[in-house]
């Protein structure tokens, strides 16, 4: 019947595209079209995930041409979770954006965002590295256009810098694809994993593709473009960027690192050490910079730079537990960061500014928003009972079991730094300024506060459903080399 038809993989890519086209055509009821598309996409992702969870990995040959010639789509546990987190975050952002944008801006927001969503879905299911290049381009261009949407000198220059960085990253990646294709005759990941072997050309390919993708993931030395872009973009867009777009290029690097690159275990540990060190620098640097920020959105943007550092701690561990911890970090961070940006958005609209020092007595006017901030803060800090805690626990355990305990120390230092800046903001929110002279607060639509709170609550619930989520991660054992 319809439910167990194998075509849901293509539907989750085509539905947002058609939604984008429809919202571009019929501008007068754009929000209705967009929200129905968003719901449809979430449902189809749900059905696909249910199919994969119940009867395992799905492989889908487009145009019925098998691997070397045609393009294959492949969905395993890792892709399902990335799709699910994109669906959840995407749906929440769609609801938030429907109240956030009005008139002219929403006319441009929805087509771009729905295209971005379809690019993300296409990226997470594809197993063809050139196809990944095209999806990366879709995500890059739409993200840049979305950042530029908020107008103003800061946003436009940030979008320009982001576009240049994104194009450079894509070109480096494409050079890697070209060399890979011409060395091994195929662009399909599964076939590549069988054919690649270590030779000087391979070292260069790995270098190029890793640097290209690190540029787009904004790992520490290459993160210069992220704070400006994520903080000057409109709030729903910065939530998208921090939660999903940055993770998309990380996902590709991850797949390449595990499946395509011919790295045996101690090569993974050796090379991974460099990424681990960069990750630790990102954590310390991001944390310290976040502490110095006076504006909330910039603080949250630097916290993204830090959280990305956590993901790269899993590379030197090269153990399945380490990879699962990194994936859990992605899920927890995506949801908590979305909630936090929504909070920043509410405060920005309510008070007209997001200066942290003047956040006094927001507790009275926006109680739900402050609760959302503290819950998502708990998840970012990695305090129980949140998703962040489970991720932190798994990574600590993986670090100790693999004998590299120093990554665990970095993790704990990161947790303390996060605690410092989360409570710095909370501290200001509790000040008892005589709130009588507070200008009559502009009413934020309840929808925006409730979406922020529900995402924050979901970040906490993520701490309780760990066995279920970790079970999904095992489908198709994505973290072992020969499996894909």
């Amino acid at each position, binding site marked *: 019947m319809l439910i167990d038809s194998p075509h849901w993989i293509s539907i989750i890519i085509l539905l947002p595209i058609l939604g984008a086209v429809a919202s571009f055509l019929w501008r007068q009821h754009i929000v209705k079209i967009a929200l129905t598309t968003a719901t449809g996409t979430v449902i189809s992702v749900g059905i696909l995930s249910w199919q994969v969870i119940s009867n395992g990995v799905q492989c889908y040959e487009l145009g019925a041409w098998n691997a070397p010639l045609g393009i294959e789509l492949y969905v395993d546990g890792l892709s399902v979770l990335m799709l699910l987190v994109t669906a959840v975050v995407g749906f929440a952002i769609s609801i938030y954006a429907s109240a956030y944008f009005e008139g002219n801006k929403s006319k441009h927001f929805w087509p771009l965002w729905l295209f971005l969503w379809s690019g993300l879905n296409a990226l997470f299911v594809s197993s063809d590295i050139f196809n990944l290049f095209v999806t990366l381009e879709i995500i890059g261009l739409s993200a840049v256009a979305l950042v530029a949407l908020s107008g103003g*000198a800061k946003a436009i220059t940030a979008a*320009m810098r982001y576009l240049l960085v994104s194009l*450079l990253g894509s070109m480096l990646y494409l050079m890697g694809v070209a060399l890979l294709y011409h060395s091994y005759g195929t662009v399909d990941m599964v076939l590549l994993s069988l054919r690649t072997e270590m030779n000087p050309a391979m070292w260069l390919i790995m270098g190029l593709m890793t640097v290209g993708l690190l540029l787009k993931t904004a790992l520490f030395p290459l993160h210069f473009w992220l704070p400006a872009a994520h903080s000057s973009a409109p709030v729903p867009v910065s939530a998208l960027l921090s939660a999903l777009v940055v993770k998309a290029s990380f996902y590709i690097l991850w797949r390449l690192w595990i499946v395509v690159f011919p790295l045996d275990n101690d090569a993974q540990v050796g090379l991974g050490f460099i990424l681990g060190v960069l990750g630790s620098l990102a954590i310390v640097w991001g944390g310290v910079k976040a502490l110095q920020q006076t504006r909330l959105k910039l603080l949250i943007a630097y916290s993204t730079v830090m959280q990305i550092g956590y993901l790269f701690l899993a590379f030197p561990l090269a153990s399945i537990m380490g990879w699962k911890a990194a994936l859990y970090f992605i899920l927890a961070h995506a949801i908590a960061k979305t909630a936090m940006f929504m909070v920043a958005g509410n405060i920005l609209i309510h008070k007209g500014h997001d200066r942290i020092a003047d956040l006094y007595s927001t507790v009275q006017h926006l109680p739900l928003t402050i609760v959302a901030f503290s819950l998502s803060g708990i998840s970012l800090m990695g305090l129980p009972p949140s998703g962040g805690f489970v991720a932190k626990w798994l990574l600590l355990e993986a670090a100790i079991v693999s004998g590299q305990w120093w990554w665990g120390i970095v993790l704990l230092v990161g947790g303390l730094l996060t605690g410092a800046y989360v409570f710095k903001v909370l501290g200001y929110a509790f000040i008892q300024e005589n709130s009588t002279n507070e200008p009559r607060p502009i009413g934020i639509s309840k929808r925006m506060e409730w979406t922020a709170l529900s995402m924050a609550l979901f970040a906490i619930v993520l701490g309780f459903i760990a066995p279920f989520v970790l079970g999904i991660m095992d489908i198709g054992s994505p973290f072992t080399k020969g499996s894909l």
Partner: protein
Amino acid sequence: MTPAFLYALVGIVLFSIGLYGLILYKHLLRKILAINILGSGVFLVMVALAARTGDAVPDAVPHAMVITGIVVAVSATALALALMLRVDAETGQAVLPEDREE
């Protein structure tokens, strides 16, 4: 030194020149030019190496990829130029803030 490797070498040199120009020059129009040259370099390497099929018809898959690449490049250039004009309109200079010399 078959033409394939010669053009591949040219492609690599173009790639380096493009990267050099992108990093070094300040004006945004020049940076976008550099990105296009970078792209042409990669495409040249892609198609040059596809011509290593001796006297048989060269491999068509890289050709298709390069055509796709060219269209992506033109779309990205169009967006980059539009953004550059907005940067110029907003800040008075077609240069990124960190490159402005006051």
